[in-house]
């Protein structure tokens, strides 16, 4: 496995494994993460995977940069791809797709020249992978979206996107765990809680997990504890 190791901070290294965003990167990134955790042990402070990289924050009171680099090189020997393992690495997320909670659904349908139902079907038609988490606690960048559905972000982000909103942008899709500003095209809403400080692991989604969206109606959404307050037009 070819990789580049860059110094990106006093106590931070960036491991660059790939150039392009591809789902096939994920097992290699997971495998590298496992090896790095083992090799660094208690000297590891944070390990942040993204589409093509792993950022590694180590404790420089225990390890200087040269020693940290050596550990990375050791960890990268005999690297094998690894799949997300264990309980709960595959998620089915029920989503109520509706213009009241997914105000961009009609516009995406018009933009793509298909019906709203076809947009929903396309969004639910495949398993997505969690490439990275960021932007907010528990916010997973999921992909890759059907190229037919790809649409740019909003020119002006909404000031207030409700928690549970499901959106798309370019070839990615995501769920907003908390109310926040946001520029993704909203299609619907889930009642599932994405982030919970009282849950083991805190975030429902972890790097490398798989997600499939399942369409439900308003009644089921409410039964699941969903909040059907419409997205405000001026939000």
């Amino acid at each position: 496995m070819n990789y580049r190791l860059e110094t990106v901070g006093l106590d931070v290294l960036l491991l660059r494994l790939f150039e392009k965003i591809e789902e096939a990167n994920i097992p290699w990134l997971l495998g590298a993460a496992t090896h790095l955790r083992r090799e660094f042990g208690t000297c590891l402070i944070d390990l942040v995977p993204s589409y093509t990289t792993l950022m590694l924050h180590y404790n420089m009171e225990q390890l200087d940069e040269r020693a940290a680099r050596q550990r990375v090189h050791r960890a990268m020997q005999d690297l094998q791809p690894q799949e997300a393992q264990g309980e709960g690495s595959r998620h089915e997320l029920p989503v109520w797709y509706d213009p009241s909670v997914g105000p961009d659904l009609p516009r995406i349908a018009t933009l793509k020249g298909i019906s709203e139902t076809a947009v929903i079907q396309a969004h639910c038609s495949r398993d997505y992978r969690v490439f990275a988490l960021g932007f907010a606690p528990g916010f997973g960048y999921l992909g890759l979206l059907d190229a037919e559905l790809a649409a740019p972000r909003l020119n002006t982000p909404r000031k207030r996107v409700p928690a549970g909103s499901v959106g798309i942008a370019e070839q990615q899709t995501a769920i907003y765990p908390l109310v926040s500003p946001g520029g993704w095209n909203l299609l619907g809403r889930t009642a599932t809680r994405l982030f919970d400080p009282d849950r083991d692991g805190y975030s429902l989604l972890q790097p490398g997990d798989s997600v499939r969206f399942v369409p439900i109606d308003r009644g089921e959404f409410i039964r699941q504890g969903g909040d059907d307050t419409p997205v405000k037009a001026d939000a």
Partner: protein
Amino acid sequence: MSGLLVEHTLGLAQLQDRGRFGVRHIGVTQGGALDWVAAHWANHLLGNSPDCAVMEIPLGGLTLRCEQDSTLAITGADLAATLDGIPVYAWQSFAVQRGQQLTFNPPLSGVRGYLAAPGGFAAPQVLGSRSTVGREKLGGFGGEGQPLRPGDRLEFAGDVRPLVRVPEALLPDYSRPAVLELLPGSRLAGFSGRSLFDAFNRPWQVDPRADRMGVRLRGPVLRYQGASLVSEGIPLGAIQVPPDGQPIILLNDRQTIGGYPCIGTLTPESVARLAQCPVGAYLTFRAIGVEQAQRQHLELLNQFGAPLMPYRVEHLSFR
């Protein structure tokens, strides 16, 4: 338990500790005291662990009522603090008596003051830290990311401690122009030659758009000519250049990943120094190599005498 009652606040003062570690892979930011050097000193003066929560007080405007006899310590910006109207010296611990009023005023130098109490301010550990992150609704007084509010009663272990001071030679001078040290990044070659010259030879001014997520700078426009980048983890102190060519230095409450090109990354000591640069202040950058920077950093840590505690790392396994 003894305590401090918040009587008046600008709404900016909040609890911070060293930060939240081992959870950045799930999108949770680092948090922690921006001027970690001053926060360390405040804890150190009271014999506290560096993991104890201190109060970060940007721009003053805070009045506290002491509800118990105790010992406190103030470091960081000069907020012209007074105890019942009488000036209190910063960078040393001082005794307070029940009923006294402790007031913080607009800064005479620096931006953020730090107040420590014996044993640290009590607050729930949320994802391994008491650091307040409003945007994430995590940590701080109450545990849900709130800044301090009038009526909040801050508790701490509360015993009286010996009065000690930071050695004169180690006191920072925030009124001097800041020279920030940066580790050059791998994207430097993507910037035009003119931009690189400007970045390291021209003064930069702190823009009003500065908060705990990042500080924007004003100066010559930096042109990045490389390819667009895939989002990757952002280290503390990264100097990003968005398309408008005006750098943003990313601080403790930054988003965890991002895709703008960086000219480099500040050392942690320079991040602490930047946290004391007010809006409108000028600063310059100086490049430094990682070996020298690590040596300097260990020397800085040695000033505190005892070795620092290992980081409290919360949850580093993915699944």
